[in-house]
Structures are given as C-alpha cells and as structure tokens.
C-alpha cells in the first residue's frame, strides 16, 4: 500500500542511507534495545523459578531510570516465561498430533536462533525434558509467585481496586476505565495465545516505559515482527488469511493495555493489508521474510526518514534570536531543535510542562545538556512566558492529526496554542503523516484516554512530609480526580503542520491522509 507509492524526493536521500537513519532513530525508540535485552534475559533465566535471581541481572542491565520498575519487569519476565511454555506446549501438541505440522515448524526455529535469545525456543527444550504435566504445574507456580510481586508494586495499585463509581467523573464514564490496565499489570487477564513480546510490550506501555505514539508504533511493529516470525501456519490454512486472525488477539491485548495510538492503528491497518496481500505461491518462510522486510521498510520510511525530514525542515524555520515555546515532550520536536542547534542557530527554548507526567523535564534536560539556551516552566506560568518573553514560534508535537484539522495531543497543548494565537505567535505542529487520521473530533471529552487517578497524588517522597494531602482522597466522599491524557486543539489555533510531505495548513490533513494511505 504505502510501498507502492514512491516516496517524495526529499525522502530518497535519507532512505538510501538506512544505517545512519537507524542510528539516529535509536533514542526515539527505546523499545528496541530493551525489548531485545528482556528477551535475552528471559531466555537465560528459563527454568529458574526464583524471582530474585531473575530480577537482578535485569535491573543491572536496565537504564538507571527504570530501576524502580524491577517488580514490574519481573512480572513481565514471568509472563514471558509462562507464555513461552504455553506456546511450546501447543507446539508439542501439534508435533504429536500430526507429522504434517512438523514440517513447517522446523523452519522458524533456526531463524529464531539466529535472532538470538528467543524465549519459546529455549523454554521449549526445557519443557520437553520435563513433560506436559510438569509444565502445567509450573504455570500454576507462576501464578503463586506473582502474588507477592504484585504486592510489592502496590504503591499505585490500591486506588483501582476500591475505585467505585462515585469516584469516577461522570463526564468521562464512557471512556475505558483504568481497571483493565490494572488487571493486565496484575496478571489477571488471560494471556492465552498472546505472544510474549506482545505481553512485554503491553506492560511497558502501562508503565509508560514506552510512551509517545512514535515509540509505541515502532515497538508494536517490532513485537508483531516477532509474532510473525514465531507464527506457524496451521494445517489446512493459508498464511495470508490465518495470520490476521492470529494477530487480532495480540492487537486486542495491546489495546486493553492502552488504547492504541492513531499511528499504531494506521500501521496495523497497513500490516493487515500487507498480510492479506501476501502471494499465495510462496512458502511460509518466504512470506514471513517478505513481511518482516516490509515492516522494517515501513519503520524506516514512515518513522525514521519521516522524522528526519520533518526535523530538518523545522530546523530550517528556526532563525537566530528566535524564542521557541514547546509543550511537554515530542521526539520530533526535540530532534528539530537539536538539528537547528547543530546547524549553529542561536535561539532560546522555553519548555512548558505540567503535572503529573512532567515529560518536559526530559526535554529540557536534553536540550540544556546539548548547549541550547533552555528555560523550563510549568503551565501556570504560561501567560508570563507568552506575554513577556518575546516568543517568536511555538512548536508542538502531535499524538494525532484529526480529519477536521484539529490536533489531538498531550493535555495542555490546546492552552499553549490558544495563548500563542492570542499573542499572535505562529503555532507550528510537527507530525509524521502516519499520525494522520480521518477520525474527527470537536472536543476533548468524547474521545480521550484516562490515566490512573493515583498519578495525581503527590507522594511523600516527592514533596517532603509537608504535603501529601491527596493520599487519602478515595476516602473523601464526593471528591473525584481527573487525569486525562489528551486534549483537542482547534484548527484555528494552528498555523502550519510540518510533515514529511512538506508544510501544510490544518485543512490539508485529510488530503495528506488520503495521499499517505493511498485510499
């Protein structure tokens, strides 16, 4: 679909050097290395039932910021292990059941080994020795060991278990509540038939380890690549029909972890078309190789190259002496600012941030460390920044560009755009075309995502013992907390959108969407 379109000229330069592009992209997609790491570890730890032994090397390997999550990661690994066993059990059953299935199954295995550290593979060998009965027992043990580890991460949990309907904001009752997320991270959702890499990804999304629609897109595609590699066409079925059925529960699982980002939905739609259009006259391994190549190319083209093109053309728009306001953190905005700095432009960046995620701190740190004149404020100081700092441009990231030209982005973006419009400062949105959608929306309430309310509670460690007034909020009758993730910025606030197709007004969103999807 997308590959049938020839990419615009600007893309060619970048696409032709995929190596440099991919090295650029690594910070954008932390999913990539961590995923691999995890898998390797879960492979190594196969068979070990002791959670402590499992968590130790993991914590050491994880970046410093992830240390706190060792309990979560531990769970992740356990999931992966358990899943691996189940998958293997099925594989065994299939092997026993019919020799016909054995044929195609032999092929993916060496491939997996080549990739290195594949959980099902090693787990399978282990299981073979122990036998099916043993395996089921092992599964149960997993469940028991999960109890304490879930308890260990209780710092945020209790809110959800007791959250009754009077604690839900009436206006947002229609949205998927956060209970499902809890159930997933507590291991209460059946993971039958879900690929371990998908489970790991879902858990990372819940904990915001993988956050931002581009990072989620890349991580999802990489996980699905793994799913495809480990997939075996059942007897009597064809890959181009059955693989989509096989993927559906995986997609649903991710969607339950966090509603799929628009970019992810777009990519899944593309992938499904790609799968169903697989030629029927090639072998499974050929079809798989074709699909994984396509996925890699898709990531290269739609994410990496597009991000570079946008960063470059946005950097061109920055002039010496500019004061640029940006909100929270967008990977592509960060890339654009760094690119402009690399080109020797002298400008100042004001990062506006908000509770409870404080994503802007990350951006401010990166920019400041790179040597850019950076200022950090919270959204309450927005009026001061916009009226007194001689702001010349506002750069905003996007979660999605809606069909009516509205911008769907991190909650608070609309206020920044509104103040910019008020002070006649151009608002520039940086967005890859993969984030464009034909969905339309007028307010921030009909469609949104609710994050756990407990994120708003300021913990004692964070603010010292003087604070923490909200710790008991569930017990206060009539008190509700609202923690939404996105808001909708009207098209009238937006001056231009920079995409890999060029700079466009918001009214061109549906045109670009048609162009990029080829519909």
């Amino acid at each position, binding site marked *: 679909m997308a590959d049938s379109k020839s990419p615009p000229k600007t893309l060619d330069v970048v696409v032709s050097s995929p190596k440099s592009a991919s090295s650029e992209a690594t910070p954008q997609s932390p999913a990539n290395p961590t995923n691999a790491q995890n898998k390797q570890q879960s492979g190594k730890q196969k068979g070990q039932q002791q959670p402590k032994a499992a968590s130790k090397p993991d914590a050491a390997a994880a970046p410093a910021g992830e240390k706190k999550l060792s309990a979560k990661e531990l769970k992740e690994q356990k999931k992966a292990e358990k899943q691996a066993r189940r998958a293997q059990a099925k594989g065994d059953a299939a092997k026993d059941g019919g020799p016909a299935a054995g044929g195609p199954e032999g092929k993916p295995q060496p491939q997996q080994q080549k990739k290195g550290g594949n959980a099902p593979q090693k787990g399978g060998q282990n299981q073979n020795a122990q036998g099916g009965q043993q395996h089921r027992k092992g599964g149960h043990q997993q469940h028991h060991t999960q109890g304490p580890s879930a308890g260990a991460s209780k710092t945020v949990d209790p809110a959800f278990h007791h959250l009754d309907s009077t604690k839900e904001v009436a206006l947002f009752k229609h949205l998927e509540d956060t209970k499902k997320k809890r159930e997933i991270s507590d291991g209460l959702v059946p993971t039958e038939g879900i690929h371990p890499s998908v489970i790991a990804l879902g858990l990372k999304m819940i904990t915001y380890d993988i956050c931002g629609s581009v990072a989620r897109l890349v991580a999802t595609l990489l996980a699905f690549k793994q799913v495809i590699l480990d997939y075996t066409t059942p007897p009597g079925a064809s890959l181009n029909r059955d693989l989509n059925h096989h993927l559906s529960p995986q997609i649903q699982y991710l969607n339950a972890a966090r509603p799929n980002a628009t970019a992810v939905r777009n990519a899944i739609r593309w992938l499904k078309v790609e799968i169903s259009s697989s030629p029927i006259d090639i072998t499974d391994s050929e079809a798989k190789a074709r699909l994984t190549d396509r996925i890699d190319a898709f990531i290269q083209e739609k994410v990496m190259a597009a991000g570079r093109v946008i960063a470059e053309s946005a950097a061109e728009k920055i002039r010496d002496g500019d004061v640029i306001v940006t909100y929270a953190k967008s990977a592509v905005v960060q890339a654009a600012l760094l690119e402009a700095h690399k080109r020797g432009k002298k400008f100042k960046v004001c990062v506006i941030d908000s509770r409870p995620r404080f994503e802007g701190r990350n951006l401010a740190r990166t920019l400041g460390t790179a040597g850019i004149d*950076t200022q950090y404020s919270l*959204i309450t100081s927005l009026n*001061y920044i916009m009226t007194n700092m001689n702001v010349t441009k506002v750069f905003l990231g996007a979660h999605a560009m809606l069909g009516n030209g509205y911008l769907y982005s991190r909650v608070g973006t*609309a*206020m920044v755009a509104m103040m910019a419009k008020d002070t006649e400062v151009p608002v520039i949105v940086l967005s890859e075309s993969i984030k464009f959608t034909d969905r339309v929306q007028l307010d921030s309430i009909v469609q949104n995502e609710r994050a756990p309310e407990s994120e708003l509670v300021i913990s004692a460690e*964070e603010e010292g013992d003087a604070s923490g007034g909200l710790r008991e909020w569930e017990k206060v009758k009539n008190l509700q907390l609202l923690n939404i993730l996105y808001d*909708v910025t009207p098209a009238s606030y937006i001056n231009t959108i920079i995409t890999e197709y060029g700079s466009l007004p918001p009214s061109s969103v549906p045109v670009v969407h048609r162009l990029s999807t080829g519909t």
Partner: protein
Amino acid sequence: MVTQRAVPVGGPPSLDSFVKSITKIEASQVPGMVDHLISLLKRRQIRGSRNTAVATANLLMRVVSATKWSHVDAIISKIREIGRRLTRAQPRELAVGNIVRRVLGLIREEVENDSPPPSASLPAGTTLSLQSAHSTQGGVPAAPLGQPSTSMFSLLSQNPTPQKDKSSHSSKNIKAGIMEGIREILDELSTADDLIAASALEHIHSNEIILTMGYSVTVQRFLLRAAQKRSFTVIIAEGYPNDQDKVHQVLSGDPDSPGNSQIAEDSHLTFQQTLTRAGLIVILIPDSAVYAMMSRVNKVILGTHAVTANGGLVAAAGAAVISKAAKEHRTPVVVVAGAYKLSPVHPFDVEGISEHGDPGKAVRWEDADMVESCDVVNTLFDYVPPNMVDLYITNLGGHAPSYLYRIVADHYRPEDVSLDG
C-alpha cells in the same frame, strides 16, 4: 527615627502576633512598629491581600492615635509617608496602598465634615464655572453645592479648600472620627467575604458546573453558601506548583492535623466545612486539563489578589490562561473580591506585576542535573486584562468591569491616588 523595635516574642511573626503587639505598645514605639511591618512585608511573613490590609489598618490606627498634631496636614503627610514606605516595601501587595488611601480619605472627610459648608468659603473657581456650564446645558437649575459627599462636583472642588479651615478644628474630635472610620474599615475587612457570599444564590443554579482555580477563602465561602441550597459540581484546577498543597489539603485534609490548622490560620481557610462535606461534587484536575474541561463548564469563578482601577486582575498564576480559555468558550468569568482589593492604581507596568516564586517548587531534587543546564521560571501572579472578566462581585454588589472606576472614585480621593511627593 528608629528607636527600638517592638518585635513580639514567641513563635514566628505573623499577622496575629503583629496585631496583638500593636495594641500593647507605647506611643514612642510606633515608629519602630512601622519598621517592623515593613520588614514583615519584605520578608513576606505577612502576605495576601486580606492579611496585609488588616495589618496596615491596625498600624495606621495606632499611628493616628499615638500622633499629636496641631495641623491636619501634619497627620496627612505622616500617613502618606508611612504609606509610601509600606508600598515600596512590597509593591505587589496593592491592598496595603489601598488601606493607606482609604485612611487618608477618611481624614479628609472628617476635616470637611467639621468645616463650615464649602459653598460659603469657596471662591468662584472651577467648580462654579462647571456648575453653570451644567445648568445651561441641561436647562436644570443648579443644585446648591452644600452636600459634598456624593456629587461629582465635590471631587473637583477638593483642592481649593482653604487650609486655615482645617487647622481651626480641634484635633481631638477629628481623631475620634478617624479612629471610628478605621474600625469600620477593619469591620469591612472581616465581613467582606460574608457579604459576597450572600449573593451566591443569585449566581449559581442547580446542577451547574463551576470551574475555579487554587484556593481562595472568598471563593470557598461563596460556593459553600450556594451549596446550602443547591447541588452542583465544582472543578478545581490545582495551581501547581504554588497552590496545590493547600488545595489538596483543603479538599481532603483532616481539620485537626497541626499542619492544617497552621494553614487555616494563615489563610483563613475552613477545614471543618469543606466543599465535599457540603455535598458538592468536587473534581480536581491538573492545570493542563482546563481547556479540555472548559467546554462543559457553565461559569468560572475566580478569587484574586488585587483588582486594578481599569478592572484588570492581579491573580494567582494560571488565572490568565483560564480566563482566556473561558473567553474562547464563551464561558462567563466571575471574579469575587472584597472592595478592599480594589486599587486606584492602573497597571502600566504589567511585567512588574508578575512576581517570580521559588523555582525549586517547579522541579524536584532529582532534577538537579537539569537545573544546571537550564533556567527554571515559576511566576506567582498573572495580570488578567479587564476584557477577560464578565462580572465582579464585591461586598458592594455585582459590577461590570467597566463600572469599577466609579467604585474606585467612591473609595479613594483623587489627590491620594499617588502617594509619592
């Protein structure tokens, strides 16, 4: 001038200790007390419009009672001088200057009431020519210029009053009148919130969704009064990073905990009767979600730090963005404020209004490495232009922003607007 400091003993200096000590001191210690208040203001140990207003009124009452004067100009210039020093100590606490001006107005009024009717002594100056101009235009016979209190002409007739009239009165009578007047101002300061709350039912209907920001005693009382009769929903933006602690604690705090009683004392917040206990549904949102929620909000009710003569606000940081978002959604913005917050000062220096707070509140200790490479700005106040506000509710009633100049004219004498010179 500075003889000895009448610094109260025991506990950190606060409004209460200041007010207590000021009633006890000798007349000779009054100048020291002025210095003491100046240092309290500078160190922000007394802050907030109401607290600074109460402190100023108490100080001036003591100054008036302790000062002996032979000529009324002496006390006027003395209070002007004190007012100048106090406002310079903390230029953003506009309420200090407001109270000084109110007291100056009181003195002038006392002098005029004591003096014989001005018409007898007035030379045929500007006032009379204006009067005749008026009568020829309107065709109405000019009213006798006997009562100077409410007429517009009286404002213009102030300066020609001959000085010998003032000096001729006994300072004792005037002094008693002034003290009485300052006591009335103090009364007004304590009853303003109740009077404002009395009109709450005229402005809030049942099932309404009200958005407010941060904590404000005036807003809290207003909403509580309405909650007695109606049930509605209140959305509160928490005002991070300066106000969220108080907001959180007022919403869910235990009234008996020692930290909370300190907050209650400092800011006059009521923990016993909170909005949730009054049966209102309270939705707490981060400041970023204001725009998203605004489309469902019926009214925005804001407290304020001060109101400028043109109807603009000096309010907690975040108020400007909230009122702008309200304007975008055609949601009315109601400002509740005691008349003592109404200042005759025009906001010519908007930038100067914005005070910078502790940047440490905007970042955590863990982010120390970030602070090394970038500036952190945390503003405390926003200036909200008058066109963002739809209605003011003061203890005198509800007013359009365009009407505020008239209330300013009622409260302050034009010659006192500038305390300099």
